[in-house]
């Protein structure tokens, strides 16, 4: 089912997000609190932006198709780096030999010559039927960059095709429009292919200056009449918390409160068992957060397509 974590704000030690909290991101790979019927064992990926790094508009990228909780290199790295923006993804796929477990399928996706990254929690039902029709909506320069077998990478290519430019010269409004247009393309192609089965698309997008996330399901609550209704058809969760800074305060990992909110986490599930300081994003919603003068500004809108 995948898990995603996005952070934007004051520089943060990545270890505090990925390993330290009692429901840490890495723990969600083998012991997820929500939608625990499927573990997230098919790879880990992370992109992180640090203004002090060389070529700061472009992120540092780490991807592995292996189990992250056995990854000594990852652990060591997270104790050292303190970026101001992170997008991390744990891949969870059904337990079948048909799945392709490879580094090419690990999110977040970020093509050469762009600095925008996308990670996806969900799955497009009957994606194989949609693929060739989706190609019509993707610019050739992005189509050739698709290397893996996931629906998510195709969604990413559509999103890039909907942006006026692949690097920097787009506004938050351009991002908002591109995300909605991407969902409309998927909806159009699903109609053309007569696909009307529950397909979640929780998308997380970032370029280091903003983080955006959708909580959306196409044809929510519908599955083939031949199969038993699965308990897995819950609406994929999406949460956020924000405050002055994230860290270990009063014996727990959480956002420190203050009048000025300078940091935000948007994630598939809260990083702590106690969810008191987390807000659940409503269904059918797009959330975009960016920093304006050191303060987090959140835009949320209904997705009504």
């Amino acid at each position: 089912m995948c898990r995603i974590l996005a952070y934007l704000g004051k520089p943060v030690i990545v270890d505090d997000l990925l390993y330290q909290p009692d429901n840490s991101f890495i723990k969600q790979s083998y012991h997820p609190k929500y939608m625990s019927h499927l573990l997230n064992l098919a790879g880990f990926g992370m992109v992180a932006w640090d203004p002090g790094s060389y070529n700061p508009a472009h992120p540092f990228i780490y991807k592995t198709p292996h189990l992250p909780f056995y990854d000594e290199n990852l652990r060591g790295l997270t104790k050292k780096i303190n970026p101001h923006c992170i997008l991390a993804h744990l891949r969870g796929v059904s337990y079948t030999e048909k799945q392709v477990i490879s580094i090419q399928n690990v999110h977040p996706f970020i093509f050469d010559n762009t600095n925008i990254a996308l990670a996806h929690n969900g799955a497009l039902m009957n994606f194989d039927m949609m693929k060739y029709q989706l190609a019509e909506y993707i610019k050739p320069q992005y189509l050739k960059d698709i290397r893996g077998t996931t629906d998510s990478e195709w969604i990413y290519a559509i999103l890039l095709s909907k942006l006026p430019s692949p690097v920097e010269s787009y506004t938050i409004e351009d991002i908002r429009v591109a995300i909605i247009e991407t969902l409309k393309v998927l909806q159009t192609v699903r109609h053309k292919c007569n696909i009307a089965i529950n397909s979640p698309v929780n998308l997380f997008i970032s370029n280091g200056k903003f983080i955006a996330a959708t909580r959306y399901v196409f044809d929510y609550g519908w599955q083939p009449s031949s199969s038993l209704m699965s308990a897995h058809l819950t609406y994929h969760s999406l949460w956020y918390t924000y405050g002055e800074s994230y860290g270990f305060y009063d014996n727990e990992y959480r956002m420190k409160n203050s009048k000025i909110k300078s940091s935000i986490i948007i994630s598939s599930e809260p990083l702590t068992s106690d969810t008191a300081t987390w807000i659940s994003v409503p269904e059918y919603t797009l959330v975009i957060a960016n920093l304006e003068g050191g303060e987090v500004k959140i835009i949320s809108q209904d997705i009504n397509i």
Partner: protein
Amino acid sequence: MVDQTIKQAISETLLSAYMNSSELEILMSHVALVSFSAGDVILQQGQYSEGIHIIIDGHAFISARTLEFEKSDIATLAKGDFIGEISLLLNEASNASIIANSDTQCLFISRVYLDFLAAFFPMIKSKTLLAIANKICLRIIDSQNKIINYMEMSDMAAPSILNRVITSLKNPGTTTFEEANVDVNKLKLRNPFSLFDQQERDELLKHMTLEKAAKNCVLIKENQEVPVCYVVIYGGVQSSMVHNNRITKLSVIGPNTLFCNTRCVHKDTSPKINFTTCEHSLLLKLTESDLNLLEKEQAKIWARLFDMICKSLVSLERSVQKLNIRLNIELYNR
């Protein structure tokens, strides 16, 4: 022999308004009297409730740490108020701490005893839940007033007249399992029907009407006075708060879930909450007359059904609380 103190205490709670003396005797036989000193934590935020406390003497306050506040005192509880009922019914960690304000005495009904009541005295369990549900309905109305204030301050857009006209023209239509291509045997294996035995679920289904509804079809209008219950089979339903043609989302109710309006338990409350399909949907409906019939003639079915009705109202209250926090944050971001 029931302790006279407990007998006196329980007779002064809301429970005595719904139960006759023999039902109260049964309830009292396994209820404990618990004392707290000022400052004692009756229920800790983040912990699961192991039963329901009912205050019979003293006061307690609700305190919560939220995204917006390190710690805030939300409300005071007094004689007759319940503690831990939401955590127990939803099987979720409590989202607030309850702390005794003064020396406080409570009656405690354990989770185990409630389960025992459900098995052997279903009507007593239902009546206990009825008392709780009535309080929940009043709290929903209370929260609604705060939300309406936020909605009035907010610049949220109202749906266009055309949209409102289109929505008002959509009505659910009745259908059959054959027409809708639903395998009834498979349906019976799903929640909530799997919670009943074979005979009960057949009886329950006899009272239900299958309806199909297009996307954006209003199933329960705001302020609707007629009690009604639905179970979602396929699709989804969005609950929203409506005020002056402005709509703000509460939560989405998905397959295998029962939802209802507050009129199912509280005859005088009609919150400004509507339930509208967010996808084309297939639903089973229980009308007022069916609900009344089940209550009068099918005690065991009614007890299970009422348990679900209460849970749906508790979920609704949770959604209203979350909306309250969300709108507060959105105002910050204006």
